[in-house]
């Protein structure tokens, strides 16, 4: 079954068409990558999926339900989580507090819960901490839970973003260039983490990535876009030998 169906998605910024007539499907419990040269429209497409940009035309179905032009927080509640290409941590909060934000969509205490502190609220707070710690443990930085996010090494800051997205308890996880700025060792750990996210947590993964080695290693399916349009789709092997893909990448190499 498809967990995500993108149908003829178009996004225009004035005269510029960032995403053009893009269609693809994502099977449940797979790892798929969206690739393409710089400026191809990958992040824009992600932003349409997660509600940060309102698509101009088309349809997006998540678990069979339309999420086209929905608000981001609603989409997160439905079970789609994302990370940002440029780190967007809550820098002056601790690592644990950062990850606790993810549990917001799965909890409910409000004004009176905060002021009167009934047992249900205390239980909820405990649960939030516990799940958040599990997520930190899963990405391997539980020992840094009480550090301020801004004081972490870059690679660890990336992990906080992943843990935070996992804490929303998603069914679909969208990662926007998660390997950017990581060293080879960290990239290898990322590969195994992505596999564990799918295998142990049963979460479907959609990935934007520049590192071709990494993409080829983890993806079961790859969609290639250029100038906002889909130019190829298939397995790593199929995409690698596609002449249009080779042209798109070779023609743009100097820009990277």
């Amino acid at each position: 079954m498809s967990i995500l169906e993108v149908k003829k998605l178009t996004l225009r910024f004035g005269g510029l068409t960032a995403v053009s007539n893009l269609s693809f499907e994502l099977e449940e419990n797979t790892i798929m990558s969206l690739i393409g040269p710089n400026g191809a429209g990958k992040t824009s497409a992600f932003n349409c999926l997660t509600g940060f940009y309102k698509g101009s035309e088309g349809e997006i179905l998540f678990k069979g339900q339309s999420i086209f032009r929905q608000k981001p927080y609603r989409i997160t509640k439905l079970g789609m989580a994302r990370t940002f290409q440029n780190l967007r941590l809550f820098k002056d909060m601790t690592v644990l507090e950062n990850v606790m934000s993810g549990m917001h969509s799965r909890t409910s205490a409000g004004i009176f819960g905060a002021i009167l502190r009934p047992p249900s609220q205390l239980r909820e707070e405990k649960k939030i901490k516990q799940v958040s710690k599990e997520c930190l443990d899963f990405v391997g930085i539980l020992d840094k839970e009480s550090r301020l996010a801004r004081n972490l090494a870059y690679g660890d800051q990336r992990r906080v973003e992943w843990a935070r997205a996992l804490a929303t308890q998603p069914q679909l996880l969208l990662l926007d260039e998660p390997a950017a700025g990581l060293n080879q060792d960290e990239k290898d750990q990322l590969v195994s983490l992505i596999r564990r996210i799918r295998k142990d947590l049963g979460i479907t993964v959609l990935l934007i990535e520049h590192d071709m080695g990494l993409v080829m290693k983890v993806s079961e399916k790859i969609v290639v876009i250029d100038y906002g349009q889909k130019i190829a789709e298939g397995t790593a092997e199929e995409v690698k030998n596609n002449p249009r893909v080779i042209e798109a990448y070779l023609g743009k190499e100097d820009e990277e």
Partner: protein
Amino acid sequence: MGNSVGLMDRFRKILGLRKTQGILLAVLSLLVILLPLVANNYIEEVATNTLFYIVLALGLNIVVGYAGLVDLGYAAFFAVGAYTTGIFMKFGLNFWLTIPIAILFSVIAGIIIGGPTLRLRSDYLAIVTLGFGEITRITARNLKITGGASGLVGIQRPSIFGHILNQITDFYYLFLVLVVLAIIIAIRLHNSRLGRAWQYIREDEDAAEAMGIDPVKTKLYAYMIGASFGGIAGAFFAVKMTAISPETFAFTQSALILLAVILGGMGKIPGAILGAAFLVLFPEIFRGIGQMRMLLFGILLVIIMIFRPQGLWPERKG
């Protein structure tokens, strides 16, 4: 006694104070509690006024400090509370029963101002809240039920357990209770799911929304809570003064409360307390030098803001 020591200790930890500071806090609390035994009427009056502004500053701190929203019309909520209590008491309602109505009306005012405007950028929000403050004051000036330009007079003094509260000492303790409640509520809100949501939004609204937080609803909660602090303070203000007039709620009033929050350090509870105390006490202490004191006051504020833009209260290091 052991219990109260434990309580002080917990309080100290929540406020992030060291042991020596904790002792200082205990001594300070004792002084505040015993003050009416030694002070004359004038000092008690000033101290009561200080407590009153602390409640307002703690309320505005939730909007400005916790949620990071601009509000240049906070006096409007305080006005709504004061007038609601004043009017309902004129109709014969008991003071204590007017409080929930005052809260309700000020929360409604908070929703009216916040609902449509919280989607706006913060500079627009500044203008809208400023306008809202002025509209409230001008409306009070022109309506019959609010007593027009001369306002409401002859508001009854409330009583508690048959004892009529009409001494300054009564109001001193009444406001002290309000301050303690306001501090407890402010601390609890800060350390809650809602308090964290405000902080997430303040740090990065997009990231917060990606985590499933509804920014408009969360900000609206800040407005509603801030408004109810203002409304409660207003209700007590009305019975303390026994008379209220529209000019009490002018823009300078909103500006003063905002100044207290910024001066103390936005988002910090001890900061809001310190800021409010400073703003009330300074002009009183320098009363002797007449008009010069406002000039000195202004210069001092500018100097503080240049050298401590983060406010008087020190930042907590993580």
